């Protein structure tokens, strides 16, 4: 700063800079800022756990309080990533336990977390406060019991969407009676019953509890008990929302809900029956987020709810909402920012559900603040996409999933190239895009030309040739994650844009036309990138397959810690043969 600006003062300035992007920028300014910044960085986000090693993280950031790690590629959510792929958190926990005794937060997504890891976490970090396991697997209720028993200052235990081996429902009882710091508990993913008395007792002694998401096994008639214990709740997820119609049960539930003046977010509603839905009406006017995507309730009932939610910002729902419900949404919820419509029966080609592209168009035209869309439907047209693009240039996330692969514009039978082209052209701040339907290389030309802020792109059954992939890789400057399945993209596009791969977090290609030879070449030439090929059906000679053979699954990601060593036998890192590969 021209003259002597003391280090601790600069550190104080940095303490007001919290976003990862800004911290990264600060660290690249000059030597002294790099040094100061690394000593005062408290929070780190690692989007790919194999991009860097624990040792490197620890060496650079000696004093972290919060770590977020992601493991498996996103396509794991669609069962495309084989079991045993990797993403083990244990090695990280081991090293963190030594280096960061004061670590407070661990947030993991799509990682394999064992009971051993949970036990180690529970015993190593004296100030541990936040554990979020999103879409994780590998642990059981024993691991949870260890967390409950040992983490005296725990504030958040969030198991969203994880797969847990449920050995016992009594793990909750391991929270000692003296434990009162809980602020957030999400056990919605658990299939079996948890001890209700332990749950009730826990809720009763947690005055700071703001988030409580129950699992399906908690019956409706127990909800009022819990709500009475925690009227300060802001986010609440019910269990199975069905019971025989009994006035006493209904009225106590309605009363309990009405006492919750802070409630803004509702979810759960498994097996919901219409008769108990009005119990939530008193809460609706304050609701900002509603997740009905596990609920079978039909359009009229859904409509009755959402028309009472003028402050709704986020809605997750099944296609039971139908176009009629979406029209009502468009009229009632002018603050809507995010909409996700999931398919009730994805594997059925002809559905009775009357949800079409019109519903989406209504919402896009009616809700001026809409930024994020995830929409499953069975038909789409270019004209609908034009309407959406013109109405909502402020879209940042647009994920359209037309259920039947390669479905063309249902009105004109043309490809949907121009429709999606309009989306990328008008929505200049679009950072995430998923395509579907019948698409040629033309759509990728548009994406390459206009998708300048695009960070994540998902493709399936699209394109004609390597040119398509080439347009994307050469045009989308900010592209970070690209995931492709069943597209005719091959070697030329990949090798021709090899350098691009070092600027991206990851590339996934399955059932495409990439050859072993190309992968080998890529692996040999690209020092800071791991080229992993997977073949579950025929992996015995994976490392000696002929160059012309096509790769079943390919995962390419940039890394500073070299090839990983925890792969199952059906995954092989290409181009690593010469251990003397130095660049």
């Amino acid at each position: 700063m021209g003259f002597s600006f003391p280090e601790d003062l600069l550190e104080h300035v940095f303490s007001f800079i919290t976003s990862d992007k800004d911290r990264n920028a600060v660290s690249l300014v000059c030597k002294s800022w790099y040094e100061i910044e690394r000593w005062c960085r408290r929070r780190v986000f690692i989007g790919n756990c194999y991009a860097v090693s624990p040792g490197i993280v620890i060496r650079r950031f000696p004093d972290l309080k919060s770590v977020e790690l992601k493991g498996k590629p996103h396509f794991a959510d669609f069962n495309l990533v084989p079991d045993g792929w990797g993403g083990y958190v244990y090695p990280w926990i081991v090293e963190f336990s030594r280096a960061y005794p004061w670590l407070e937060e661990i947030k993991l997504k799509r990682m394999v977390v064992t009971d051993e890891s949970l036990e180690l976490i529970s015993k190593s970090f004296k100030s541990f406060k936040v554990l979020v396991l999103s879409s994780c697997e590998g642990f059981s209720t024993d691991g949870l019991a260890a967390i409950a028993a040992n983490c005296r200052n725990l504030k958040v235990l969030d198991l969203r969407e994880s797969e847990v081996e449920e050995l016992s429902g009594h793990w909750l009882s391991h929270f000692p009676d003296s434990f009162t710091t809980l602020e957030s508990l999400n056990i919605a993913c658990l299939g079996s019953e948890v001890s209700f008395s332990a749950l009730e007792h826990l809720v009763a002694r947690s005055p700071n509890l703001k988030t409580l998401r129950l699992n399906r096994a908690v019956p409706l008639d127990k909800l009022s008990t819990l709500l009475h214990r925690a009227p300060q709740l802001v986010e609440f997820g019910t269990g199975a929302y069905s019971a025989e119609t009994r006035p006493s049960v209904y009225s106590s539930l309605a009363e309990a809900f009405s006492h919750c003046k802070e409630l803004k977010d509702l979810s759960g509603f498994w097996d919901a029956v219409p008769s108990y839905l009005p119990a939530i009406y008193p809460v609706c006017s304050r609701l900002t987020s509603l997740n009905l995507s596990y609920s079978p309730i039909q359009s009229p009932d859904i409509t009755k709810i959402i028309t009472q939610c003028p402050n709704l910002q986020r809605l997750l729902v099944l296609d039971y909402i139908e176009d009629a419900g979406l029209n009502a949404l468009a009229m009632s919820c002018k603050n809507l920012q995010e909409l996700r419509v999931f398919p009730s029966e994805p594997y059925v080609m002809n559905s009775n559900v009357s949800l079409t592209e019109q519903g989406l168009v209504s919402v896009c035209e009616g809700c001026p603040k809409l930024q994020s869309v995830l929409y499953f439907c069975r038909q789409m047209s270019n004209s609908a996409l034009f309407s959406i693009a013109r109405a909502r240039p402020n879209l940042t996330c647009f994920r359209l999933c037309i259920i039947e692969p390669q479905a063309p514009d249902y009105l004109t039978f043309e490809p949907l190239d121009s429709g999606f082209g309009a989306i990328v052209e008008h929505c200049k701040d679009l950072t995430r895009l998923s395509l579907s339907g019948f698409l040629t290389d033309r759509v990728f030309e548009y994406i390459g030309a206009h998708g300048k802020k695009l960070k994540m792109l998902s493709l399936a059954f699209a394109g004609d040739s390597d040119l398509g992939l080439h347009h994307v890789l050469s045009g989308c400057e900010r592209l970070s994650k690209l995931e492709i399945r069943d597209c005719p993209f091959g070697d030329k596009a990949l090798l021709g844009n090899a350098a691009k791969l070092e600027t991206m977090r990851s590339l996934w290609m399955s059932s495409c036309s990439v050859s072993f030879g190309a992968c080998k070449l890529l692996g040999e030439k690209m020092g800071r990138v791991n080229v992993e090929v997977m073949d579950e059906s025929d992996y015995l000679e994976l490392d000696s397959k002929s160059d012309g053979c096509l790769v079943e699954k390919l995962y390419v990601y940039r890394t500073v810690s070299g090839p990983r060593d925890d792969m199952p036998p059906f995954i092989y890192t290409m181009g690593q043969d010469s251990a003397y590969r130095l660049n």
Partner: protein
Amino acid sequence: MAIVKPEMKSFIWLETPDGSTQQVEEEVAMFCPMICREVLQTGMGSSKNYAIKLPQRVTTPVLGLILDYCRFHQVQGRSNKERKSFDEKLIRLDTKKLCELTSGADSLQLRPLVDLTSRALARMIEGKTPEEIRHTFHLPDDLTEEEKLEPLRIRTNDPRIRLLNRLYARKRKELKIREKAKCMLENVEVEEEHEHVDDRSVDDLLLFINSGDEKDSKGVKSSASGAPKNKKKNRRRKDHPKGLHIIENGNHKKETDSLCSSASSPSKISKLLESDSPTAIMHSSDFDFDDELDPAMKEQLDREVEDFARRLNSVWPKRVSGTGMGSLGHDRRIAFAPLSRSS
């Protein structure tokens, strides 16, 4: 300590680093903890000759701004809105002045002003690229390409690659010694090359099982008269970009090949080599000084690399296998059938 008489206002004398003095209303000056302490502990500030010497960073213009701040805020009864509005106007300064004000406030320990100005600086940094930040604050662009691309630096932490680097470095040293000795024998002046020493941490070096690395730092007994002292000590140079290692290794590999064929005179060299730091890898007793040496040494190198790599691999943390998850079955015709409805 000045006593406030109703008809007389009290002043405190302050001296800025340029030597000039000024008197400031007591209640305003005492708003600064540092001045307050000075007055109470040392009794200074009551007259011009005993003015309180302000810290280096509180120049006259900076003092002016700070006093404006103190003068405004020490008055009771101002609304939050008024205070906020004043603050916003105060920090509308160019970068340099804002930095100076932050620094000055810090040395006077005026916390609220430090926070206000620090936040303002933080806002000037947010959203900018490193280049833009450098430009705004006139900072040097002194991170090397290697350091910016941290990857290169970090890459050598892969034990296998570190292992190789070490072996190559050692071999390079040895060949250099031999060449020097050779030149020495031929009475040719040897350029004292500045050795690029590695800056590996102690941990790295100890990673070697049965390593003789400790002996590296003990230096070499010069055996031949007038022999240039070999730089055997492991000098740790700070901030040595490890990227250079890789370039190095690439270069010296060629060096190795070209020197392969050079014959060396046995006796003096063997003496030098004996006093050279032996390692677990190269035992001087193994040396046979004829033309087949280098390939043999190379072979041994290769063998030992493999051996160490194997040993290293056995030290890797064991993979913890997770339990399997779900079924593999999926209808390939459906592009994306969601498994979860994650929030």
